[in-house]
């Protein structure tokens, strides 16, 4: 397997609380990896270790390595903004920045490519809005405040904003949990389209969504990985008792 993200012996503590214990797992390039498990099992913690979001909380302690293409993102001297540019995040709640629709998509480009001229920027913004499936809904009102969009549209806008800085990896932290069923379907559809080009890692607590999306599954329980493997194998022939119980809806 060609591992895009390789986690070795990762431990995470929030204060004195161990959130992740001895996590080692490889996440394959391209395709969708779904991290699932009951709430509080460390899914989101594992996800946010990939783009170094854990350190936003200053009581967090981290040990171990998370290598993207073989390079540990926690190594000394690594530029955290470069990590986050490569590893994009689609948050649980859609969060439009308090600026226009256009500026939301242009936001990261203005930071990483400050010399991009206006017309090039406009072309890029249109491109990523198209990729996110939002262009036709907003083409006539790019200067309108992004907060005026519906929640579902805002999540696609967030997708466009994330893609616009050209990441290799898309993280999704329960990206449809705040959305209505139709908007959720939209986002899932987009993620399925994008998996050809991006390594995608999605946290979900809904088994149905995991089954719809996953090529590869990581099942977690109480801060540890119980079982990980190709979706087909894990869903039809789980090896661990805990996995069987979870899939059967015991907890």
């Amino acid at each position, binding site marked *: 397997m060609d591992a895009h993200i390789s986690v070795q012996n990762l431990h995470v503590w929030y204060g004195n609380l161990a959130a992740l214990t001895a996590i080692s797992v490889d996440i394959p390039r391209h395709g969708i990896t779904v991290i699932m498990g009951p709430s509080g099992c460390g899914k989101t913690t594992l996800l946010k270790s990939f*783009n170094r*979001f854990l350190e*936003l909380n*200053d*009581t967090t302690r981290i040990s171990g390595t998370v290598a993207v293409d073989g390079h540990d993102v926690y190594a000394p001297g690594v530029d955290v*903004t*470069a*990590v*986050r*540019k490569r590893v*994009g*995040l689609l*948050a649980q*709640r859609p*969060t*439009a*920045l*308090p*600026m226009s629709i256009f500026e939301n998509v242009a*936001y*990261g480009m203005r*930071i*990483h490519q400050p010399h991009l001229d206006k017309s090039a920027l406009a072309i890029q913004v249109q491109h990523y809005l198209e990729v996110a499936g939002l262009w036709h809904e907003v083409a006539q009102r790019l200067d309108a405040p992004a907060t005026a969009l519906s929640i579902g549209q805002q999540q696609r806008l*967030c997708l466009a*904003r*994330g893609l*616009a*800085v050209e990441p290799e990896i898309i993280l999704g932290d329960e990206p449809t949990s705040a959305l209505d069923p139709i908007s959720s379907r939209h986002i899932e559809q987009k993620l399925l389209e994008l998996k050809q080009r991006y390594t995608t890692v999605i946290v979900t607590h809904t088994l149905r969504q995991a089954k719809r999306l996953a090529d590869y599954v990581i099942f977690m329980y109480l801060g540890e990985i119980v079982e990980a493997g190709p979706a087909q194998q894990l869903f039809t022939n789980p090896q661990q008792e805990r996995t069987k119980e979870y899939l059967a809806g015991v907890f």
Partner: protein
Amino acid sequence: MGIFEIRSDAGRDTRPASARHRQDAIAQRWSLRITFIPLIVLGFVAIALIVRAWPILQTYPLIALLFGTVWKPSAGQFGLWPFITGTLWVTSVGVILAVPPSILTAIYISEYAQTRTRLIIKPILDVLAAIPPVVYGVWGLLAVVPFVESVLVPGLSGALGFLPLFASNQPTGFSVLAGGIVLAVMITPLIIAVIYEILHTVPNDLRQASLAVGATRWETIWRVLLPYIMPGIIAAIVLGASRAFGETIAVLMVVGNVPKVPTSLFDTAYPLPALIANNYGEMMSIPLYDAALLMVALVLLVVVFIFNLIAMMILRRFVR
């Protein structure tokens, strides 16, 4: 006796339900009445000031009082312009000096500081806000005035004295600048506290949305947070200005109190609150003197009231 009946009967209220409800009604009625007292007091203060200021407003046109430049009560001249400009100068200098460091400090404690650092710095800033103004006044007298006199006048006025703003027209350190520095130190904790509170109402999702695309903290602050909280920053400045505008004793001790329109940072000033504090009660029986001072009090009340109203209206949209 079910399993939920675990209390003994010893401490139970044995009064009938109607007595308990009557007690509740009385508590509600009286707490409501007491709550209205501040409003009533404000009303009485305003009415009293209007009534007592009325004679001078009938004698002279308001324009002549506000823009008159000669203050000689014994000669019947009540020009307030020197005091109004004195107040505006001192307040403006105080606000201009206070705002940039206040914004940066609020940003530091809210956005950059570790939790532990914040837990140390924040209470210290809150204590600064609680220091009695007279203490700042004494500090101004002992430290700021000599500093202005021996360092800033030779330094700034020596280098930039050709500009009217920095001209040195009198030999002491009692000046607009000394007043402004003291005020800046006094209102900084207030402005920091307000901006800090506003930064705390900003959803973390917003910060993370920016950081997630690889923005630095400063880019997040500059491009997302500051534009978002700009109305709140303005409200914080208005509150600081309102506090500075009405501040009496600390300013009075360091500005020299000469009723002359200032034209330079190093001129003396005589702000409106100082005018009242220095003279009320020692007006002899000069006609209209009392009315003139109470008109000044009315002006202060109205201006501070309006400033605070504006700030509150802006801040309301940040309440979560």
